[in-house]
């Protein structure tokens, strides 16, 4: 089947993906098509076109602040011995559930916060509050001094230091020095 850039077939409102849109596709690609198509459908129904959000800058290994480096080698999958590979049965046996979990746990989650709470702990100004599981953190800018202690310890580099927004310049003193933060809080 032929689809346009929005995974829509020639028939408006009919979307397609996976093997049927041609080429030797894998299951992974098909899953991705489904996800993408769902967004397109959602946008279509709202009368909009979906646009791919800008890709966040790549977080590389040297940008992480891991507390320490432990070895976690790839989980080996059981394989058929060479001699036994005589038919079309699978050579690689795949993971069992614990193995699969372990393999997934090797991910360093580069750039993606997983709420370890260590930014909250590292903040000397108590400017970071926890919003509860899955809801991330809030940074109170009238407490934040911009010291970057949070960013410099973030194991997955989910925090970036950014300049103060230009449209609302921070109050400065006669020498151009920042006057914020205004508040002070000791650790609870």
């Amino acid at each position, binding site marked *: 089947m032929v689809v346009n850039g929005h995974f829509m077939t020639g028939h408006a409102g009919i979307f397609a993906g996976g093997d049927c849109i041609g080429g030797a596709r894998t299951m992974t690609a098909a899953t991705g098509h489904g996800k993408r198509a769902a967004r397109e459908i959602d946008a279509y129904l709202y009368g909009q076109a979906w646009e791919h959000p800008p890709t966040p800058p790549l977080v590389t290994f040297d940008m992480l*602040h891991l507390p320490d480096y*432990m070895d976690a080698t790839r989980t080996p999958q059981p394989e058929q011995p060479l001699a036994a590979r005589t038919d079309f049965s699978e050579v690689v046996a795949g993971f069992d559930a614990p193995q699969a979990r372990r393999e997934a746990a090797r991910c360093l989650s580069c750039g993606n916060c997983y709420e370890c709470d260590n930014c909250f702990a590292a903040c000397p100004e108590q400017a970071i509050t926890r919003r509860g599981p899955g809801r991330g953190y809030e940074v109170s800018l009238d407490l934040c001094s911009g010291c970057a202690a949070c960013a410099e310890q973030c194991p997955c580099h989910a925090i970036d230091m950014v300049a103060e927004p230009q449209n609302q310049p921070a109050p400065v003193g006669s020498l*151009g*020095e920042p006057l914020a933060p205004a508040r002070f809080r000791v650790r609870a």
Partner: protein
Amino acid sequence: MMGGGMMNTNTTQAGSLPSAASAASTPPGSTQPSAADNAAAPTSATDAQAVTTTIDGNTAVAHIAYRVNEVCAIFPITPSSPMAELADVWAAQGIANLWGAVPVVQEMQAEGGAAGCVHGAVQSGALTTTFTASQGLMLMIPNMYKIAGELTSTVFHVAARALAAGASSIFGDHQDIMAVRQTGFALLGASSVQEGHDLAVIAQAATLRARVPFIHFTDGFRTSHEYNTLSILPDATIRAMIDDELVYAHRARALSPDHPFIRGTWQNPDTYFQTREAVSPYYAKAPAIVQEAMDRFAGLTGRQYSLFRYDGPQDAEHVVVSMGSGAEVVRETALWLNAQGKADQPRLGALQVLLYRPFSAEHFLAALPPGVKAIAVLDRTKEPGAPAEPLLADVLSVLAEAVADGRLERMPRVIGGRYGLSSRDFHPGMARAVFDELARPKPRNHFTVGLVDDVSHSSLDYDDTLDIEPAGTTRCLFFGLGADGTVGANKNSVEILGNQPGRYAQAYFDYDSHKSGAETASHLRFGAAPIRAPYLVRHADFVACHKFEFLFRRDVLGAAKEGGIFLLNSPYGPDEVWDRLPRRVQEQIITRRLSFYVIDASAVAQRVGLGPRVNTILQTCFFHLSNVLPADEAIRQIKAFIQKSYGDKGPRIVELNNAAVDAAVAALHAVPVPAQATGTVAMPPVVPADAPAFVREVTGEIMAGRGDMIPVSRMPVDGTFPGGTTQYEKRNIALEVPLWDPETCIQCGQCSIVCPHSVIRAKTYEAARLENAPGSFKSAPVNARGYPDSLFTLQFYVEDCTGCGVCVENCPAIAQDGQTRAINMGEKLPILQTERENIQFFETIPQMDRRRVNAANVRGVQFLEPLFEFSGACGGCGEAPYLKLISQLFGDRLQIANATGCSSIFAGNTPAHPWKANAQGRGVAWSNSLFEDNAEFGLGFRLAIDQQTELAHALSRKLSDRIGQDLVSALLDAPQRTESEFDLQRARVAALKEKLAGSTDAEAKMLLSVADCFVKRSVWIVGGDGWAYDIDYGGLDHVLAQGRNVNVLVLDTEVYSNTGGQSSKATPIGASAKFAAAGKKVPRKDLAMQAIAYGYVYVAQIAMGANAEQALIALREAEAYDGPSIVLAYSQCIAHGIDMRTGMKQAARAVASGYWPLFRFDPTMRRAGLNPFRLDSTRPRISLEDYAYRELRYKTLERTNPENAAHLMHQAQAAADERYRMYEDLAARDGSRFLPHWEDVT
């Protein structure tokens, strides 16, 4: 008016704690008693009546010194500091001297400065004094020659103390006195508190007449800190002793433009000699002048002194000559032995030298009994290599001259010996050993007494049990913990009893040198006659043990007398306690037929809300059991003291203490004592059986309180000790310890970084290791992604924990309940055994590989092994976390020069040494030279290392063919910044050593001797503000200026913490401190700005409690900077009068108020064209008051003098604001507006 009541109720607590231990007697978090709070006011000059009271030696001396002087130039040094503190307090109170003026009390930057100031003041006509000891007196020597050479009247009051040699010591002997006997000062020594008081005025009278300057000394601690009942001289008597005509003459000799002259000239071979000889007649006349003053004094008081006091029959054949408090022991022993009247025993005499310089041969010979056949001379000093110790040499020379010129018929046999160094107890058994030795056919010469010398075989055997004290003296021994108030309560008890008409009391406090949580033994005596027993209690009628654990560590009942009373503070009640006692204690109770009582004073204190303060409860029990006072009277007196001691802390504290008194007796229980010991609890070994031999034989013996008995052969000959011995101490001082909740923990490291005692250890390890873990061992998955096989454990070393709670306060992980955290304080006893097993297991998990730890943030640093652990620092100490941090960051290549101060005591106090090596055998090389030379000492390290590194480089180039060119190039050029690089370099050094192993040529052997220098060494110069701002400021400045790669860490408590909290130039305006009782009048010195002025010094100001990450960065940058660095570290201290548990929060407030800005000045930034000055903290967000008035050092002044306090606070706020603005200005500058590094200018 000197009403008896006033002296009686106001004197005994006056600033008389020993310095290293003064902190110990102050509970963390309680208000800090200072001399200012408790000092006795000397009373006005119209008093005519002598008053009997009970005070310590320092107070007794200072009372006189203050009144007969106009200028006091002071500097703190143990054990003399209380004299200076009292002078400062009295001046702050506006109390006048004999002439109606308030003396000016001027703190100086060092004792050398104090002596210079004295010199200037006496040369300008003022009656001037100073108070010092030991190293301080040594620093005064140059000026002492001048003052004496110019025949200037002054009295220095010295609490005589040991000198730093193979080891330093704050305790008493005569080494300092003997080190100044050649200066031309007269030396007048007292043997008791009363004598110290009396001779102080006699010295003053004599110096004015003789023009020879005087040192008047008491024995440090033994007399300076002994409380004893004495008769205080009425002012009229002091007045009568001082002849104003002589004062006028002193003034007339002073420098004045109105009758100018030149003094202090430089002379040449033609005249210098005569100038020296010209003073001789003054020294010839001085002894008679002193005796005349003594006689006049006797006329006024009835107490007759003489230059040489002889006690004993005139037909005595054997005489022992001695000086200071030891003379009282000799005297009492001689009289007792004579009274025993054994037929075969020769008659004995005791001769005390009071005026040691000028030494009057004539008076000495006259004082000796005519038929003396044998003399033993006791020196409380050591002069290595001398043919005789000084007093012995003097006696020998006087006798020999007298025999030679016919004044003496024949030469008696004379032997000499040493005793009592560093306050080694000198008791009648030892004095008897000396008399016994004299009676032998061939007495040993140059003997020692009081130790076991199995090397030179000098020591005499002695009887440790001899009891010569008169019947009717009640002797008591109390074992307490520094912070529990035992010492304070005992001081009160002595005061209560000493003030009863016709009663006499004595108290002496034997401290160990832990800064807090020290074991203190209080030795108290009460009697109907004056107590002349300047030695420890060995036959106690009453023994109280205020902490149950002591029973397992010390021989608490070793001194209990048969039929005595034993009071135990025990968590176990009367029914249960017996079986909990070590078997040996049971046996002692039975065989000595002790009456045994228990009280759970800690529970009573908790119940009434007094926390750890068990003092008043146990004091009440003491009075109840000992019957030294009628019960009602005792309770009334205790409550009066509570009002006095705690009245200024508010009515609630008073009520709590009164409630504790009322609850005490009800909680006291007699324990039925079985006929037979049935215990199964053995005394555990002090150190584990598998500890190294030295630790078992020396360290462990010292920890067990048996250090006295370690023979000379076991001691290192040169003061070298193994590090890492605190791990064997297991002090177990905390009742409550932190407990870990792995569920709530976020593994952030915030607890570990603030722990002063390194008791919080974190490891990440392979989950498989848990296989053999004890069931109670806790762990959690790593709280970060990417660690599928690892677990995290936070292990608390509960036996080493002080229970300060700083970790809990700093724990951000508050649980769902909003109350508990990831760590919470909980009772230790129930978990002790399982935690021991857990720790044992935890230690089987290997330390984390330094190459794999991220040392750049707080979370990572928790995985670095601290090589500074379990120190004797106070609970909540603000200094120790920084030391621990540098040990984690640089420990395996760290060499530390440590200035004398708290950090030298809790690091260097034998036998518990916290600096240690890691499993690879690399660790911290630590040394303490002095207080006044530490920067120079550290620079010496650097120069030596640099020089040897240069040599290693040159030789390796030369031998590159044999070593291999590649290896040499790598050794010379490989970077050394990261742990991996250090590891590689060490491997290269090992390869080099292997290549050259077995070489016999000089160059190869020489290279091997310096090969370790290929690894970059981290030289740190560590000290407090007293060191950096004051006494070694000149040296520090010089060292920073040299451009060498040294790192200076200033542990800035803003006071002299070690000596008990005296003001330094770091003390802020508006704060009160000892020596600044009326509040500091000028702002603190900005040492950072002074260092910044060089332009090429890395400078940082940090405060762990405000921003631990910034502190970490600064310390790493300082270390990495290839040049001089200085880091000023805000260190909260018990001297601030805060709850140490919340000390880190107080540090945060110091920063938030703008008082302690955080910043870094990094010259390398300048090199990159950037601004080297980076301000790391924000503009003030709270007022200075909001920070300061949470601390007693500020609050005290607000309470005592609100107007002055408000004024000073106003000025302090202005100073802080202005300073912050100045830093802002620096931070906002363009990088080019800083000095370039001179090396960058081409």
